[in-house]
């Protein structure tokens, strides 16, 4: 690892952000996230939780302030290419994430973009399907899956990129208890993974995270 152990891997410094012709969502916002942390993020609707994730991934750009990720300042589109290869974001709506016809093809999309060779991809595919309990789903058509299956496959597509940090946007929403339990087990199967989970499900967060932050009015605090 290039960055020092004690340095945060994600660092927001006096960051401000607002959607066009609306009030600030973040105003001089500061936040540090360290390797190995597993945190939950709660807060009322519209408090900026998803925006926060999109700022990290460079899908939205700040108005003022700085974002440092993996020890480097990230500003232009090119800076975020590396971020997107090392941090995985799970979207709220699985239909946004799954666009390939078959499950195998969708899972392979990320690794193919990382220019892995065929052998490596076959192995990643096999490992991912096993870890997520999706063996036998390879040739299923993505839009014919049930909602719960779609969510698991979405997670698989992000998982297959072997990210160092996961950002999960409401991974447990609208899922039955069994599927939620499955996600809990998947997350706990990799103890050195770092992640931030947006969720309103306190029970789920308790099982997967070490502590919880609350976001409100552009401020974030541990609870």
């Amino acid at each position, binding site marked *: 690892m290039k960055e020092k152990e004690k340095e945060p891997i994600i660092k927001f410094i006096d960051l401000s952000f607002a959607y066009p012709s609306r009030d600030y969502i973040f105003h001089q916002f500061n936040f540090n996230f360290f390797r190995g942390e597993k945190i939950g993020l709660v807060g009322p609707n519209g408090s900026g939780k998803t925006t926060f994730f*999109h700022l990290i*991934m460079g*899908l939205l750009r700040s108005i003022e302030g700085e974002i440092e990720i993996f020890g480097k300042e990230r500003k232009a589109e090119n800076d975020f*290419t590396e971020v*997107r*290869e090392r941090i*995985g*974001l799970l*979207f709220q*709506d699985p*239909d*946004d*994430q799954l*666009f*390939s*016809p*078959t499950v*195998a*093809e969708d899972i*392979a*999309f*990320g690794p*193919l*973009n*990382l*220019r892995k060779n065929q052998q490596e*991809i076959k192995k990643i595919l096999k490992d991912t399907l096993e870890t997520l309990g999706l063996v036998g789903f390879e040739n299923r058509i993505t*839009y014919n899956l049930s909602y719960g299956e779609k969510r698991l496959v979405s997670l698989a*597509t*992000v998982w297959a*990129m072997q990210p160092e940090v996961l950002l999960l946007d409401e991974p447990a929403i609208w899922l039955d208890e069994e599927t939620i339990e499955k996600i809990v087990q998947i997350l706990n199967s990799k103890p050195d993974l770092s992640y931030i989970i947006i969720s309103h499900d306190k029970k789920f967060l308790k099982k997967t995270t070490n502590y919880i932050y609350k976001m409100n009015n552009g401020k974030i605090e541990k609870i």
Partner: protein
Amino acid sequence: MVDLVKEKFSEGDSFIHKLDPRVKIIVALLFSIIVAVTDEYPSLLGALLFAIGGVIIARLRAKEVISRLLVVNSFIFLLWLMLPFTFSGEKIYTLGSLSVSREGIKYAFLITVKSNSIILTGIALLATSSIFNLVHALRHLYLPDKLIQLFFFTYRYIHTIYSEYVKLNNAMKIRGFKPQTNLHTYKTYAYLFGMMLVRSYDRSKRVYNAMLCRGFKGKFWTLNHFYLKKSDLLAGIAMISYIIGLVLLP
């Protein structure tokens, strides 16, 4: 709409189903161009035989093929109502102030034979591959990436946009909406389609973002590669020779 998504004809294991999609695309393209520009009856008869032969070898269900043809021919029927009366030429029949011209009938007949041949060949050769295989094949044939993506995403999201339409339509129904001929109905439908447009646009942005987050840099890489077999090559040469024969026939 749902038929389109199900890719009914692509499931099967006939010789044509197993043919390399690259060969099929090239043959279908060549065939369509030749048929479109030829006006010779013997060539067109040969083309029609080629198309029907293709459907038979692909062992497609006749009922479904005919139902597709009916859609196309309902448009052609409109041409039969217009062309014989409006085309100038030798008059062969007079009906009041209207007269039927020989050239008009000939023209309508040519269009009918040509379009049915092309559609049947399209069904036999193209519809027997899954969309994803066709997309891969187009990429292997060096079509620009942007065009391929446009083609593929249109296909992929028709299903999502359609289910969004169903959702909105149901939302209208459960609040007692009944389509009638009045301004309220027109307005509601305008809102419905406007809403679908906006939602599709938003969706496209989110999909693109999700792709960026997985390291997408504007290029699609393929998971499964094609291998051109000897039988693919032979079938391709045979079909192309037949098509060239059609041109030389007259």
